């Protein structure tokens, strides 16, 4: 220990930052004894924070109802969702919940790293499982078809727009653009209103640029990556890629309809929309309640259109199970997830209760089920809708023609690369699109070479 000053130790420890600090708590044994008198206690997350008092109270009530209906199961609910910053630490420290919330971007990696439990053997007893849309179930499956989780929410990217700005710019808010040329023209008109009004905004920071560029590529008929003979390769150095980037470049530099401030992320753009300074941006329906709540706006102010083109990016969320959970806990957890989130039988009761509490009813998504189950849910939603259904008609009507595609493998790494492409196009007037695509594709190929 000779020569270890306090400062040096501090320096050294900070040099290793959080990634190492994480490991300090590794090795704590998982809590034992989940059964007491045949009762299984499961920890679940997804409980709303205390600051969302109404949602929290409702969640707690539902837990009580569930426990009353399932006397052999006790729910130990925790706040929060899947947070990549704490996930590994919680898993290492035995603190990860038995049933944990994930976004659609996570399951593939979690399954590959065996950080989720295989729930295939317990699925036979799950009601309505066969009604859940297969493409959503697929997100939680591995190559052999084993299942590791259940979807509980989904979205597909459309265009959220400000109806008032449309009107001001002489555009018909009931007939939003359906092609990228129309989007471009509308954005130009809106930005010509002046007073720092931005026609169209898009993300380009912290992997969100890559996420949105993926949707751009899909809508232009392109792909991010394709599989050939079991090998993945980048596929965006294509006509679709060039078209997407040229459109963005022209909107930013020729039309000047994307504002001057770039390197934006979701919060920035929602703020622009919430302050009434933004005409359109690419987003799922779930963005509307966020803006309304956060910036005290009205639902009537916003419209939703489907993304132009033939396809869009879809995503969502769901629940996975702790790889260290016992079979009893997994079975109990499945009952909770199905009862709380995937339950057409409780829809009427829920919706009746929520419609009066300001919870938005009647947004076009999530659409978790197919066929009769979804029709039943939709009918209930329409009957109790408290948000303006007609504002979402352009989205709903065109949705059947827009294919929903999932994210590419190793999505986050690829998004990092595509972030750079987005940034170049939006910050450099002389960006060389061909070279950008070529270089990004080469980097993506290296990333995809690791896909197993």
């Amino acid at each position, binding site marked *: *220990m000779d020569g270890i000053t306090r400062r040096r130790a501090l320096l050294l420890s900070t040099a290793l930052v959080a*990634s*190492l600090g994480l490991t300090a708590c590794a090795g704590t044994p998982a809590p034992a004894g989940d059964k007491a008198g045949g009762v299984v206690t499961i920890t679940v997350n997804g409980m709303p924070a205390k600051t969302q008092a109404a949602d929290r109270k409702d969640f707690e009530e539902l837990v009580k109802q569930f426990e009353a209906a399932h006397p052999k199961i006790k729910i130990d609910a925790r706040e929060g969702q899947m947070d990549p910053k704490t996930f590994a630490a919680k898993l*290492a420290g035995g603190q990860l919940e038995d049933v944990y919330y994930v976004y659609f971007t996570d399951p593939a990696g979690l399954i590959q790293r065996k950080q989720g439990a295989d729930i295939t053997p317990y699925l036979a007893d799950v009601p309505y499982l066969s009604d859940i849309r297969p493409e959503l179930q697929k997100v939680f499956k591995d190559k052999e078809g084993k299942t590791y989780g259940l979807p509980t929410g989904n979205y597909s990217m459309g265009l959220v727009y400000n109806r008032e700005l449309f009107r001001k710019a002489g555009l018909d808010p009931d007939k939003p653009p359906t092609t990228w040329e129309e989007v471009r023209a509308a954005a130009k008109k809106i930005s010509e209103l002046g007073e720092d009004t931005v026609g169209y905004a898009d993300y380009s920071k912290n992997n969100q640029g890559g996420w949105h560029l993926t949707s751009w590529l899909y809508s232009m008929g392109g792909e991010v990556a394709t599989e050939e003979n079991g090998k993945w390769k980048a596929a965006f150095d294509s006509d679709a890629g060039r078209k997407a980037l040229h459109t963005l470049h022209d909107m930013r530099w020729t039309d000047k309809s994307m504002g001057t401030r770039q*390197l934006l992320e979701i919060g920035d753009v929602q703020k622009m929309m919430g302050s009434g300074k933004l005409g359109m941006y690419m987003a799922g329906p779930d963005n509307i309640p966020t803006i309304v709540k956060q910036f005290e706006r009205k639902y009537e102010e916003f419209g939703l259109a489907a993304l132009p083109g033939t396809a869009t990016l879809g995503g969502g969320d769901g629940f996975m199970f702790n790889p260290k959970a016992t079979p009893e806990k997994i079975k109990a957890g499945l009952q909770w997830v199905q009862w709380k989130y995937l339950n057409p039988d409780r829809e009427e009761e829920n919706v009746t209760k929520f419609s009066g509490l300001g919870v938005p009813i009647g947004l076009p998504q999530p659409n978790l089920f197919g066929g009769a189950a979804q029709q039943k849910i939709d009918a209930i939603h329409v009957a109790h809708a408290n948000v303006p259904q007609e504002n979402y008609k352009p989205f709903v009507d065109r949705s059947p023609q827009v294919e929903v595609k999932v994210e590419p493998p190793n999505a986050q790494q690829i998004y990092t690369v595509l972030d750079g492409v987005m940034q170049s196009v939006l910050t450099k007037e002389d960006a060389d699109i061909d070279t950008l695509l070529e270089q990004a594709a080469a980097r993506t190929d290296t990333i995809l070479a690791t896909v197993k």
Partner: protein
Amino acid sequence: MSALPTPAAPGRRARRLRDLRRTGAAGENPKAGESPNAGENPKAGESPATAASRVPATGRARRLRENLVAYLFLSAALICFALFAWYPIVRGVLLGFQQVTFAQPAEWVGLDNFRRLFADPLFATAWRNTGYFTLLALVFGFAAPFVTAVVLNELRRGQSYLRLTVYLPVMLPPIVTMLLWRWFYDPGPGLFNNVLGVLHLPAQQWLESEHLAMISLVLVSTWANMGTTTLIYLAALGGIPGELYEAAELDGASIRRRLWHVTIPQVRFILLITLLLQVIGTMQVFVEPFVLTGGGPDDATVTILLLLYRYAFVYNDFGLASAMSTLLFVVLGLFAGLYLRLTRTKD
């Protein structure tokens, strides 16, 4: 500035120094840079074990007995250190050679993580960017506080008020600083572009331009951190004997010559230390690019820690992140070693 022999070094001179330290006698002329009563002021970082090893075996038991309570108190700190500083460091280095999922036992992969690290094109970019940031931070961050301190030191009125003003940014939470500067840099209604507009100068893309982004980040960082360094310099300047200036003035030295021949040589050591600390500090730049640019535009501000963060918390690849931090650890260790050597010599 020459180095002292280490305590373990044999020979007459070492023994003589040992005696000197123990007795605190100032009879002999100590080596340059060695304070005569160093024995009473154990050098920073010297562990009690080392100190004890210098005492002859017969005295050791007695010393141990006498200082038992002190050792007890010390052991608490050492245990805390071992638990919260050393254990994570060792684990971190080991993780660099493993593939970890935390769901299953870690798998040893040898140098695999390092190989993958070198294959990542962003790896070189991150080191280059960090080097660039450090260099810029030295140009701005090293000169600015020194100049500020010299100016403050010359002031006869309002010095304490200005000291507080200079120190104020240090007290702001980093995230507040970042959001404030984000508004300064905003290409639309931002402060800087408005000022440029008033002066009929063209507006700048502060954070959106590849060439300006890093400089913009360094400005934030300098502004936020210069308060502490300025205080250190002020303390050093305050310690310069006034006679030196008086003598220089009698000799007719101008302000510039006094600065060059009196001030700078007198605070030379402090300048060197802050330089090293600055290198160590700025190489760990994270908050600025994370909040302001996210590494963009076009990877122009991807730094080592930002990349490390991505490996760990975006890609969930702790092996890769740990390999990266081990490399950073080695590089910073070199600087830390240099720092230690210098401070030890000064004692």
